[in-house]
């Protein structure tokens, strides 16, 4: 297929740079997930891949396919939108589950915020 070669150079450069940036951010997230000491610290690095990592890769995909087909192909943008709705839900539920389980195991975590107010905190 000949049309593969019609991509202008600046578009290829931008796509390549975006892909590499996205993957490096995902790697940093995995590195942090492995390296952080406590569970709640480990919850933060994965957000790197689900936000900026995904944005970069989706933007690269949009640019590449738009250049390939000579028309705007925007549907890859649905993935960051979908992730920005679903990821907070799982993260939030997991944080609550972790708090619940750590309280059950008597590990040092803050007590429930509602009971904190009753004591005049």
């Amino acid at each position, binding site marked *: 297929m000949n049309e*593969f*070669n019609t*991509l202008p150079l600046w578009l*290829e*450069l931008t*796509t*390549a*740079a975006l*892909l*590499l940036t*996205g*993957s*490096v951010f*995902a*790697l940093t*997230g*995995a*590195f942090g*997930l*492995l390296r952080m000491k406590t*569970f709640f610290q*480990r*919850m933060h690095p*994965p957000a790197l*891949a*689900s936000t900026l*990592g*995904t944005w970069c*890769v*989706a933007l*690269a*995909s949009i640019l*590449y*396919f738009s250049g*390939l087909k000579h028309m705007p192909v925007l*549907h*890859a943008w*649905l*993935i960051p939108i*979908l*992730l920005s709705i*679903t*990821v907070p*839900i*799982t993260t939030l*539920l*997991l944080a*609550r*589950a*972790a708090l*619940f*389980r750590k309280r059950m195991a008597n590990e040092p975590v803050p007590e429930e915020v509602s009971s904190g107010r009753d004591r005049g905190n």
Partner: protein
Amino acid sequence: MTGLLANAVLASLFIFALAMALTLVRLFRGPSAQDRVLALDYLYILAMLMMLVLGIRYASDTYFEGALLIALFGFVGSFALAKFLLRGEVIE
């Protein structure tokens, strides 16, 4: 596709694979159940991103739908697991 973009795609696929390997270490090491759920959720996100990059590599639209499906299944799976950790049963 010229060599430049093809090489960048290969390099980013390699970096994603490396990230997956690090995540797998966390998945097997634990130590707690919520750590494993977190690692599994991250694996889903990495797999989805890899699908998008593969779509660029093969210049095919179909991979996008695979990525969308992985994102959805990842959400449902992590949600059910987190819910299970919260109460010990999935459906109340």
